[in-house]
């Protein structure tokens, strides 16, 4: 027993060492840093060693278990300990360790050869195609884009708030990002990328989501001036968290402009390549922004694009030239995907607007407002009904813009929908994202409008640019959503605000959802820059886009 104990103790120590290394490898991979050849060989050797130890640990204890069923606890407990240790970084290495654990029958040499071959092929294919490093859209690197590989998706952190292990991982990651930026060893007090804490009582159905208060901005803990985070990123993060910049187009454009500024101010440190180092520099910024407000699907796609462009910069390119190229790339992205796309969508949509129409819009969608203004300029005769909802009351902004143009408008709250719908001939809705199963993710209340419109047989048209198409699937508005500040629901009527002290009442909760999903059977048509498609054709468009890239 002493022998096996000794080996197992050794194995456990090895396991902890290996675990730290594996974590680092995992994080480094996900941050897009490419290891040098020597480092890679070293890591490969260590991995092999670790796998060998693990199998030795598992092999004899299992055999002992089989032989001596009577005295099972002692050998089986240490055996389960080492796989349990491995389970800590398991989410990232799920496929690898699972594969290793599931095939004890194959010989170790065969496994090692397979692994080496697979890693080589993955590495060569990874040269041209970088994985999306940011957290909410990560997927394992695929060998080729057209093969239907089983994608092991890691759950984004912002829907795992009720899992303490996930929270600890995030905290560690933010600390590590802070440390990685402090290359020169300056002594810094205070957390650079702060972990924002939740506010108030969360409704139990949504305990897996964050709920922040607008009154406690994320910059409370940042030292000034922040060295890890660029000041324009700090400003952008504050603008997001206070709601000054809202709306998915506005947020994406602001993000891209800020990245242009960051690239302008960036200077490559010696002995580093711009293509690798810049991507690393961007990671703490992205973590900070997602702490301020969870990233939207459009922002995620924009970030993926930028990271791909950066890592495609050839290494012999001079710094000024590279920076100029990147800025031009960003400009062309904004121009093509947002500005020109909205022109194309307006052209299609104007065909659908006829004289004498009564058009219903909800909230403030920049695209829908643009379409209506263009249609009005083209001398179409129509009037608009703007539907608004508490607590954001974004419809007032849309009302302002349309009335300034001279369009005849009516304003109602969403509870008056059944009253006003018999007059309506068409409904135009904007979208925050279009999901791969055809569901439309948009501002909360959109699904309600689509439901009642369907009941009155009024056609519903959704307008959405293709850069908002996203590969996620969702069937309800609970699993992945955003919770806004609950204090927004408090209102004063007749001098009394009943919910003022809602925190003191134990069983009272306020729920301020931001998004909801509309099922595709409520939507009649989706107008995109590629044309007018039914809701269910979204995965086709995604596939076409992936092939293009």
């Amino acid at each position, binding site marked *: 027993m002493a022998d096996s104990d000794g080996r197992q103790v050794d194995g456990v120590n090895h396991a902890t060492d290996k675990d730290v290394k594996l974590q680092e490898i995992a994080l480094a991979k996900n941050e897009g840093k490419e290891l040098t050849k020597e480092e890679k060989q070293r890591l490969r050797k260590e991995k092999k060693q670790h796998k060998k130890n693990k199998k030795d640990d598992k092999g004899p204890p299992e055999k002992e278990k089989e032989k001596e069923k009577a005295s099972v606890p002692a050998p089986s407990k240490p055996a389960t300990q080492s796989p349990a240790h491995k389970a800590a970084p398991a989410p990232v290495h799920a496929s690898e360790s699972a594969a290793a654990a599931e095939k004890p029958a194959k010989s170790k040499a065969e496994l090692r050869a397979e692994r080496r071959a697979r890693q080589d092929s993955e590495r060569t294919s990874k040269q041209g195609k970088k994985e999306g490093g940011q957290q909410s859209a990560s997927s394992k690197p695929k060998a080729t884009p057209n093969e239907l590989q089983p994608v092991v998706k890691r759950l984004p952190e912002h829907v795992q708030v009720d899992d303490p292990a996930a929270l600890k991982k995030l905290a560690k990651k933010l600390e590590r990002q802070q440390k990685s930026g402090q290359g020169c060893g300056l002594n810094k007090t205070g957390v650079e990328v702060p972990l924002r804490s939740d506010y108030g009582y969360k409704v139990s159905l949504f305990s897996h989501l964050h709920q922040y208060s607008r009154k406690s901005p994320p910059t409370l803990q940042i030292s000034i001036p922040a060295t890890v985070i660029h000041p324009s990123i700090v400003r952008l993060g504050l603008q997001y968290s206070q709601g000054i910049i809202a709306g998915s187009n506005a947020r994406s454009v602001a993000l891209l402009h800020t990245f242009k500024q960051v690239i302008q101010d960036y200077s490559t440190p010696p002995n580093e390549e711009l293509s690798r180092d810049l991507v690393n520099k961007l990671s703490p910024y992205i973590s900070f922004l997602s702490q301020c407000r969870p990233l939207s699907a459009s922002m995620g796609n924009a970030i993926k694009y930028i990271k791909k462009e950066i890592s495609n910069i050839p290494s012999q390119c001079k710094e000024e030239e590279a920076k100029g190229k990147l800025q031009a790339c960003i400009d062309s992205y904004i121009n093509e995907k947002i500005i020109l796309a909205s022109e194309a969508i307006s052209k299609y949509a104007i065909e659908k607007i006829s004289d004498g129409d009564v058009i219903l819009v909800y909230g403030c969608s920049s695209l829908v407002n643009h379409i209506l203004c263009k249609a009005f300029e083209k001398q179409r005769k129509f009037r608009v009904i703007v539907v608004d909802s508490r607590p954001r009351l974004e419809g007032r902004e849309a009302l302002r813009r349309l*009335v300034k143009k001279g369009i005849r408008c009516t304003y109602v*709250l*969403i*509870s008056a929908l059944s009253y006003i719908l018999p007059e309506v001939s068409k409904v135009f809705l904007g979208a925050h994202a279009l999901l791969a199963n055809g569901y439309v993710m948009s501002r909360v209340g959109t699904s309600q409008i689509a439901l009642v419109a369907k009941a009155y047989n009024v056609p519903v048209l959704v307008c959405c640019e293709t850069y908002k198409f996203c590969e996620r699937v969702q069937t309800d508005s609970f699993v992945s959503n955003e919770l806004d500040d609950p204090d927004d629901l408090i209102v004063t009527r007749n001098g009394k605000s009943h919910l003022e002290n*809602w925190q003191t009442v134990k069983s009272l*909760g306020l729920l301020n959802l931001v998004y909801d999903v509309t099922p595709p059977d409520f939507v009649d048509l989706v107008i995109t820059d590629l044309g007018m498609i039914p809701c269910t054709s979204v995965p086709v468009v995604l596939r076409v886009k992936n092939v293009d890239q």
Partner: protein
Amino acid sequence: MPGADKETELSERIEAFLSELKRCGSGAGSLRGSAETARETTSLLRRITAQARWSNAGDLMEIIRKEGRRMTAGQPSETTVGNMVRRVLKIIREEYARSRGSTEEADQQESLHKLLTSGGSSEDNFRQHFTHLKANVIEAINELLTELEGTTDNISMQALEHIHSNEVIMTIGRSRTVEAFLKDAARKRKFHVIVAECAPFCQGHEMATSLSKEDIETTVIPDAAIFAVMSRVNKVIIGTQTVLANGGLRAVNGTHTLALAAKHHSTPLIVCAPMFKLSPQVSDTPFTRFSEILSKVNAHCPVFDYVPPELITLFISNIGGNAPSYIYRLMSELYHPEDHEL
């Protein structure tokens, strides 16, 4: 002279009641529940019966009808007033018929067949004088008052038959009946309540605070989130302002959306309404308040919604549970067809 004094006092009271109604309608006065309005109307009618000068049933009915028309004109949206007037008229007819000695069944059993074949109004015009008619009518009105006082309790007593534990119940706005219903159930069962706040007056907030004081897990959601949250709701329980003759509802705005969302998710929609809310009207003219905020913009603020009977699962009233298709029958028991138009 005591008679004249009584009359002026009576008209003063009626005037006071009318002005109270008008103020409540404009939202400036204290918001009264329908039950209070019903009770006050009935006591006022009792007072009229006691103090006004009349010699036979026909006169009394004329007086009450006239006062009833004035009261309903003062606040058309408060249909409880008209309903109580009709109830009292029916009571007078019944008492008259009983005094005359004719059996009750002949009048009350108005089956559809009889309605079609009888044709024409009944031959007597209520001109006979009976000495005890006044006392009988007043006694019957007292019974009506007792019934009114017990309606909320009767409805709450049925709560445990309809709510099981760990349910998620959704409601909208503020209804005292539903509040009492849920509080009664909460004494024995644990469940969650989601309240839609019902902008722009946000009565849902009051409802939520009062429910949470009884230790019921409550969540307030904005109106826009009704459909988003509906998939996790087991039952929708609402109150209403009026129950219409076809089984439909006139309820606070936003209820139609709630009913459609419940239908889409096949969630049962239960309406808690006492019988005095049942009204013979079928029309659904919306009541709106207009305001011009910008010169080029019209704003609409409808107060009530019409909910068709197909979206409703069950009515819970003080006489038990009923399907919407049965409402027309209950109507015939409460009101006489000639009184449908006051």
